[in-house]
């Protein structure tokens, strides 16, 4: 399955780029991520717990960053094995374009599943993948953006928003 979307993030392009390469950011943004270690150069190792329809599994996987053109584009390629649940793998072509103080992030995601995930979850996998991508980029956006002035969210939530930007700025 394939899906594409774009987001405008209220942060400059170098900040967004740095966030994309950070294991900590990835850990925070990948839904269900339990562990994320490694570096952009050597790749990341991840443990992700997810439930796809009736199948719940712990995926152990590798994430590689390929074709890096800082700070403009990168291809993120990942594959995770979920034991008896099967596997999931995919890639995302991510492009960044500066737009004033903001950055436009465009992505094309391609995902494949196999084994029990395909046997039991094929009907719902498209929706699932879209949900995962949406959640990832929403979290990613939240990690970078300052809280809105008029936002009245709980203090803890406010504190979380923009945490990466505060860290690097």
């Amino acid at each position, binding site marked *: 399955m394939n899906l594409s979307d774009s987001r405008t993030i209220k942060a400059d392009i170098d900040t967004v780029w740095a966030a994309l390469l950070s294991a900590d950011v990835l850990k925070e943004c990948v839904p269900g991520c339990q562990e994320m270690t490694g570096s952009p150069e050597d790749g990341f190792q991840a443990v992700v717990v997810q439930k796809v329809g009736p199948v719940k599994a712990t995926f152990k996987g590798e994430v590689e960053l390929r074709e890096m053109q800082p700070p403009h584009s990168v291809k993120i390629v990942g594959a995770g094995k979920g*034991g*008896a649940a*099967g*596997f999931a793998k995919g890639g995302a072509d991510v492009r960044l374009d500066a737009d004033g103080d903001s950055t436009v992030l465009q992505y094309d995601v391609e995902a*494949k*599943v*196999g*084994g*029990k995930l*395909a*046997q*039991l979850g*094929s*009907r719902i996998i498209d929706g699932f993948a879209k949900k995962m991508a949406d959640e990832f980029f929403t979290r990613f956006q939240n990690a970078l953006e300052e809280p809105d002035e008029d936002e009245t969210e709980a203090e803890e939530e406010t504190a979380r928003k923009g945490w990466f930007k505060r860290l690097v700025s």
Partner: protein
Amino acid sequence: MPKDEGIGASSKRREDLRFLTGKGKYTDDINLQGQAYAYFIRSDVAHGTINSIDTSAAEKMPGVEKVFTAADFEGVGGVPCGWQVTDRFGEVMQEPKHPVLAEGKVRHVGDPIAVVVADSLSEARDAAEAVEIDITELEPVLNMKDALKDGATKVHDDLTSNLCYDWGFVEENRDAVDAAIKGAHHVTTLELKNNRLVANPMEPRVAVAEFDSSTDDYTLYTTSQNPHVIRLLMGAFVLGIPEHKLRVVAPDVGGGFGAKIYHYAEEAFCTFAAKAVGRPVKWTSSRSEAFMSDAHGRDHVTKIELAMDKDGQFLALRTDTHANMGAYLSTFAPSIPTWLHGTLMAGNYKTPLIYVNVKAVFTNTVPVDAYRGAGRPEATFQLERVVDKAAREMGIDPIELRRRNFITEFPYATPVAVEYDTGDYHATMDKLLEMSDHAGFEKRAAESKKNGKLRGFGIAHYIEACGIAPSNLVGQLGARAGLYESATVRVNATGSISVMTGSHSHGQGHETSFAQVVADMIGVDEAQIDIIHGDTGRGPMGMGTYGSRSIAVGGSAMVRATEKIINKAKKIAAHLMEASEGDIELKDGAFTVAGTDKSVAWGDVTLAAYVPHNYPLEDIEPGLEETAFYDPANFTYPSGAYGCEVEVDPETGKVTVLAFSAADDFGNIINPMIVEGQVHGGLAQGIGQALVENCAYDENGQLLSGSYMDYTMPRADDLPMFNVDHSSITPCTHNPLGVKGCGEAGAIGSPPALVSAVVDALQRAGHTDVTHIDMPLTPDRVWAAMKS
């Protein structure tokens, strides 16, 4: 007046008492002292190279006995194929090795790679998670036509291509058929797919094996339709165990439909592992495993051409079929698209020239083999659909076109090498038209129209070759086994009778119908007779149940053995009554001397046989037990006319089957109620194929329909009340009961009738460009056809 007992009576199925009260004893009910549990680790990719398998962590896990991989099976044979097809150039088919566990490569999702054997199933499953398997994925081979192109990725690197064989039948007729088609008044062409199916017996497969180190005896309990064949294949070809050291038991089996004919890797694994770990080993398939490891059915892609003269007389028929074999050759796979398919292409019609071409192709999918009907549904579907299309093109009523071409004289030798012994196709057609109130159809169609629905009627006339099969013939055709059947009739001292049959019952009701035959012949109560099957330790070598062969071949063997019993019993009776053997008559369980009032009861004779105090010991041996092997002289040829009436919702494309009528000629009938049940089951599966069932793979070779969430089974509300008749009887001429077999007919005749009915409904509504829709006829496909 219906009979109460014996041949022709609707005796209630005695086995149902235990099935319906939960007392059936299935393989999974068998638990052996100290057994370990096997959990199979299966490939989750369609095609790949196995780089490494690391079992070290798993072997240290709690409860783990051993983790097996292909390395443990060095020197062990592969899972054998039981039929070798010779192609149209005289070369034998390409036959790849089918290892018990994948060696070097995985070739379909579900291909077993490693097995954990542990104290409990949960420990085995946990340890399986710790087995590290590194596989490099390869491009999967999925589309059959692409698979045959030059340079295509190969499923088996050691074969020259993905082509198993290119079969032509009858090859000598090829040019004549081509010429006849070229010169014909009209040729109707139809391209179609026969959709891939999963058999889905209610009981998944199970194997439990034990090894007795004190005697070197192995016992395997398995869900099989033919335990003797499993003993032969597994003993001789896989594990090298001689028959006298291997007992195979198939106890109550909850449905087979073909998928339990074959010898599977899991059976060989458990038997092998039981010795290796020194304790019994049990494997129970999950439903998910069944979807990706039970042999699938059908999966043909066909182009068929029918040439006619101006009056609609059939002149020639040519077919071009690609048949999917899957990744390995299942036990009987090569025979299905060839000898069980090409030989039926004449159908009920006197087409003088026929040429059938079949290319069998390896793909990265689950192996494909016989499924209820096995080749004959594929033959019937394409033939009846092309006849239906031809009728429209020629402007001749489809019933009339069939009648013009019906074979009417018997025996009839077809141009595809079989000889039909009997049949009366006009009689079954007449019966069908009466049963289905064909005359009232237009009125019903007008009624539907008023309600905004499209009504259609479809007809199919089928023939099948059953009673499989004459051994000398199938031997010439490449079978690596004989296809006779055996029976031992053991009369006990008090007169009760144990019949050991090589046929296997997994829903067919043999325990009832077979007993009716013997009861009828001797004249004793059916309750005095037990039918024993499914245990190589109890009965003589048998070939099992498939191809609607049980009553025609197994029943005939039982008749022959019972005749021997009666002959011997008459000798004993003659001695007891001091009469001449020729004057002895057996009636209602008593022996009499013709023309006298002398009589001796069955029980007195049987007792004399075992207590031979007053007995002709100089002439005959004591005891009363006889065995017969019966090898049929020909196939049997059941036939019938099927009619389907549907309503299509023009808004949604949903098809509702309103009525289904089946007029069959099964020859003589032993138990009408059981026959009716067999037809009902066959119709449900045929309508399931035509309406809802479909096994789907994605472009990566992932099995998408791997559960009942995505593989739709027919349900009661998909089916109408069936209208079934089998009063048109032309008895088989060459077996002693005059029977033809009824197990598969429903699944053979129904799909074309249903599809033709839907096409008829659409045509009547003005969709004249819709001449065919591929099965299953789901609402979206029918809707798309209407909008095209």
